[in-house]
């Protein structure tokens, strides 16, 4: 006690630290190691971003060339013209993400805790669709959901489609070229992005925690609610982000499985850039999309309250 109250003679002896300071070369090592990554980011991320920012405030045509005229009105015009597609993209992506979570969580749980020696087989089944191209996988859904195919016939005989078409999810007796088809396609295509982070997160949970919860008379539901789910939150956040962000910008599903009323913002950007040749509008739309997603993700991470995404 007396030793603690006695003030130490000096704060920290600085000279000792001076001696142990690593040489400059050693201190630079981490930065050298970062160099390839930084360069990659500069060339493939920062530079295109600047180029695109510039494009979005240019005016002109292919013949006269495009010049920076600080024409910020492009942003307002683009937003005013295409806000329905923005809203639709966010909506479709959100529903698909939710479906992915609902479908993916039990599967990830199963693989992590119950699959036993089948774990690797189930994992391969989850990843296997990635061996074919995104386009082929989406086209396959046109066969699965064909008007006269077994799935749609079954849904029709259960009168499921009467309900969905009453609320505008489908159109008459068909599923293709409706919002439901697009959401199905998005859910299917991004499901593995949900399952994999969930699985890695769940797999790290010590099963003894479950036993402990049981010893403390927690019912399985309570165990899940109080132990498993909170511990899997990083996986949930990572999975939802990995699903939502690409889904919001996707255009293949809307193009192949949707109709005119299901076009998403990605379709608009593609069409403005390639067909209408209105590069400034396309660039402005891309920026608005990026900003919107960034804002939503920031808000979400704050709410979900986790920083360790990996």
């Amino acid at each position, binding site marked *: 006690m007396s030793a603690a109250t006695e003030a130490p003679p000096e*704060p*920290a*002896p600085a000279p*000792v*630290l001076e001696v*142990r*300071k*690593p040489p400059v070369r*050693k*201190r630079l*090592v*981490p930065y050298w190691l*970062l160099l390839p990554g930084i360069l990659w*980011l*500069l060339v493939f991320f*920062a*530079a295109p*971003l*600047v*180029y695109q*920012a*510039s494009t979005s*405030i*240019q005016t*002109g*045509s*292919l*013949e006269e*060339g*495009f010049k*920076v005229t600080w024409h910020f009105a492009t942003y307002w015009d683009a937003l005013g013209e295409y806000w329905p*597609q923005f809203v639709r993209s966010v909506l479709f992506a959100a529903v698909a993400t939710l479906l992915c979570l609902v479908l993916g969580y039990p599967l990830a749980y199963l693989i992590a805790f119950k699959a036993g020696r089948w774990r690797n087989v189930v994992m391969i089944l989850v990843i296997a669709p990635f061996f074919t191209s995104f386009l082929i996988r989406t*086209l396959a859904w*046109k*066969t699965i959901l*064909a*008007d*006269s195919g077994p799935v749609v016939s079954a849904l029709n005989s259960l009168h499921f489609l009467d309900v969905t078409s009453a609320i505008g999810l489908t*159109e*008459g007796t*068909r599923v*293709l*070229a409706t919002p439901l088809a697009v959401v199905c396609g998005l859910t299917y295509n991004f499901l593995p992005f949900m399952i994999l982070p969930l699985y890695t997160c769940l797999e790290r949970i010590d099963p003894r925690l479950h036993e402990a919860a049981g010893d403390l008379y927690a019912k399985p539901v309570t165990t899940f609610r109080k132990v498993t789910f909170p511990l899997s939150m990083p996986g949930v956040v990572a999975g939802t982000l990995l699903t939502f962000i690409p889904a919001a910008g996707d255009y293949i599903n809307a193009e192949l499985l949707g*109709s*005119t*009323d299901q*076009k998403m913002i990605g*379709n*608009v950007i*593609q*069409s*403005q850039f*390639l*067909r*209408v*040749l*209105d*590069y400034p509008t396309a660039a402005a739309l891309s920026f608005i999309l990026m900003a919107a997603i960034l804002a939503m993700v920031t808000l979400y991470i704050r709410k979900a*309250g986790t*920083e360790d995404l990996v």
Partner: protein
Amino acid sequence: MEHLAQSEPRPEPQPEPLSAAELAAMRRSMTNGRMALTRRSLLRASGAGVLGLGGLGALSACGIPPAGRTDAGSSADHSRQEKRVAFSNWTEYIDVSDDEKHHPTLEGFTKRTGIKVKYTEDINDNDEFFGKVQAQLAAGQDTGRDLICLTDWMCARMISLGWIQPLDPAHLPHAYTNLSPQFRDPDWDPGRAHSYTWQGIPTVIAYNKKATGGRKVDSVDQLLTDPKLKGRVGFLSEMRDSVGMTLLDMGKRPEDVSSDDFDAALARLQKGVDSKQIRRFTGNDYLNDLSKGDLAACIAWAGDIVQLQNDNSDIAYAIPDAGYMTSTDNLMVPNKARHKENAERLIDYFYEPKIAARIAAYINYVCPVDGVREELAKIDKSLADNPLILPDKEMAARSHAFRALGSKENKEFAQKFADLTGA
């Protein structure tokens, strides 16, 4: 919860002096520990980097130069020294040997001339291909391609941008003599100074007899109004084909379409969209839909239909009384191509009736070569009699083409059509 508590401001009167060991540990961690690079600091750093780069100077330094006509287009021709030619074409658009590894006509060309053909199927979409080569051509660079095959309206755009080299008629005797009259003088390339037709593409109405219940579908009006077809009608996402067919049905000529005509045709299609008559605007994926019966009837490209009929006997086509559209895919030599003369010799080779017949027998589009009928009949009589491959005079007379559009007009039309298709 832990981190929430951490983030709350807590009373901290004075930073306590750290011990030497603590300081040392901290310093270590700054350079090689976990603290060294938190995600946050990385984000902050990259954000600052972007902002720094994105300074006003960088922003205004960008821009796309005007695509002027440059006479720098014709470059030194290396044809005589380098016996090569690079030909970019659409997928499945030339003859293939049975083992699918060789292109007999191209090998025949190499055997005769000693010129090796580097054949690449890297064109899938006109707009996409334009996006791919645009930067190079605008900057006056070689695209690495000596011969490209694009659809007429895209040819028109590239020629008017000054990105295509004029062809030397001296190297094209067969092409000049054998090009059939229907394709001789398009408004976008008078006298075929820059291009020669590869194939003609009739746009017709196709239907699935099973899906229509044996009903014949033979007019755009029927496509847009027949209640039996509701929700099972497809139009093409290619503006000139869909709008052109609608214009013809309204008694207008696509050759001299006015802005008002265009709007009227679009209004008509819009009605079809609003009434849910039209299911989708499709690219190449319409074939599968039509074959399955998800599309009962649609606007279709004739060559596809000839091939689809081989697999599915329910598929039928009709040529509307009002007429039909024919577009063309055309061979052109882009600026700065290293082997222009070789490319011209290859074009000329394709215009020999024997060679043209071999290609026509394989790809089933309209062959633009006069005198091919006898040669094609030798290969397959039924092909030579198919009006979709070799249109007779009466049919050719009902063929129409969309007027070449200026760039401003093109943008206006494309924007309106994009609005119609939802994007």
